[in-house]
């Protein structure tokens, strides 16, 4: 029985990995090999032109720089905002706290496409159209991260905070020296998920960024799809390159991904 189980599990894993494997095969094969007669499930020759050709023809490096800039800045700002607000909503009493929190949480389910037109108008009004900041700023309103931060900080014992208060520490100092050091697992989850969302984001940068030089990798990949048509070798190579940072983050923090996702699922 256990042996069947393992066989099933491995078959499933092979099936799940196969599309990624096929990307790799396509990326290093010539397009003649992929179209030619006879079906090969493995590469018959290795060809690096798929990698070098698009890199020399298109501003792929710029797209990577833009993607990194947007993801890193968005992660830093979003996580800082969510941490301090999470602390306020979890531990500090102030007027309007509950109403504000419910209002923010109620936006969890709002699809991007509902607010894209008004958000676009705002970005135009602020003069941010076509710039990285136009991609970053509207996405700082991240309800899921704030929700997770508050949930996590509610579990921190009040006594710890009160003890520090009796020592005469300011709230800012308490937050920095008492609360934050306890929040490492939370910070890990927030950083990882925010990075993933911003790195993989497509619809909003597609709306905001106009000039091909300013594209992110995801928008750039769509641009390449329209350039290369049926020639998938280069497309798969570029797509693989764009996945590398995400795969590394996943490999390093796999446990956090799974725990974070599971936590979002159980209430």
């Amino acid at each position: 029985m256990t042996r069947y189980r393992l066989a099933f599990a491995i078959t499933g894993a092979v099936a799940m990995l196969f599309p990624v494997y096929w990307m790799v095969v396509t990326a290093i094969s010539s397009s003649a090999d992929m179209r030619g007669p006879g079906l090969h499930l493995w590469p018959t020759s290795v060809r690096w032109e798929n990698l070098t050709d698009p890199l020399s023809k298109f501003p792929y490096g710029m797209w990577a720089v833009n993607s990194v800039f947007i993801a890193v800045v968005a992660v830093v700002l979003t996580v800082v905002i969510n941490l301090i607000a999470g602390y306020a909503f979890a531990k500090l009493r102030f007027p309007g706290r509950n109403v504000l929190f419910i209002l923010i949480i109620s936006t969890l389910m709002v699809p991007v496409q509902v607010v894209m037109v008004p958000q676009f108008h705002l970005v135009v009004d602020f003069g941010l159209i076509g710039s990285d900041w136009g991609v970053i700023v509207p996405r700082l309103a991240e309800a899921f991260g704030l929700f997770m931060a508050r949930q996590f900080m509610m579990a921190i014992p009040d006594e710890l905070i009160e003890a520090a208060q009796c020592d005469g520490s300011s709230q800012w100092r308490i937050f920095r020296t008492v609360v934050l050091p306890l929040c490492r697992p939370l910070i890990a989850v927030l950083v990882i998920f925010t990075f993933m969302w911003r790195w993989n984001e497509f619809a909003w940068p597609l709306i905001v960024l106009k000039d091909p030089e300013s594209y992110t990798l995801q928008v750039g990949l769509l641009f390449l799809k329209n350039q290369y048509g049926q020639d998938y070798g280069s497309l798969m190579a570029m797509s693989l390159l764009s996945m590398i940072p995400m795969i590394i983050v996943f490999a390093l923090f796999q446990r956090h991904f799974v725990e974070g996702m599971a936590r979002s699922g159980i209430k």
Partner: protein
Amino acid sequence: MATVRTRRAREALTGLAFAAPAVAVFAVFMFWPLIQVFWISLQQTRGFGIAKWVGLQNYQEILSDKIFWTALWNTALYTAISVPLCLVAGLAAALLLNRRMPARGLIRAVYYLPAVISGVSSALIGAWLFNEDIGLVNRILDVVGLGPVPWQSEGVPALFSLVAISLWIGLGFNMVVYLAALQGIPREVFEAARCDGASRWATLRRITIPQLGPTTFFLIVIGIINSFQVFDIVYVMTGGGPGNSTTMLVTYAYSAGFEQRQQGYASAIGVVLYLIVLVMTIVQWRVNKRRDVA
């Protein structure tokens, strides 16, 4: 007395100051757009020209817009196939990987991997695998003798190719949530069933699945809400084609707003989408509340 009061006042001020950046961002980029979208949906806007007030005309147009109804139907059909598939596959994977086995962590990670790949990259893999002329799926079908399937030139196969990719992406999330829920079922329940001589199948049907009820419900609601927002894979893989046979509500709203530049009309579609998601959320909330009371 005075010190308590000043301390309270100071705490309130600190709280407001700490919450201020988040509240400001939400106010400007979420709450205000949510009000604005209703306002814009009552206007006719073409390009960046001056908007004209047209009352409910956009909504009347929606009612008689064939493409809108096609998009709604496609979205519903995609949801109706994709959500149950992801659910069943996720549960099967969770049950399979809940027992001890060699390399379990690694296998779980592999199942979850597609969830961290971007929608665009997933769609590009999909477009390549399901390419009608030279894609691998049709080449294999050709070898087996099942002939080429018109994945790109006919509507139903195109929709199924999207469902296949959505299953690949969504399986891992469903599995992870089910795995966590399985940990929450008391061991004694299973032991009691074993003592009573219940078969594996009976245990699954009478104990495991009912115990997972709330989780299943949660996954269905989340699945429906996510499916109603499916954009990246559709836009990149099929572009809504062939014809409008895979146009979804959100891809239609996008093309109305940013390709045809009818932003009032796009906002009206957005409002309809908002109402659908709102109903789903309220249903979930009501059911959860009833369950908590019971």
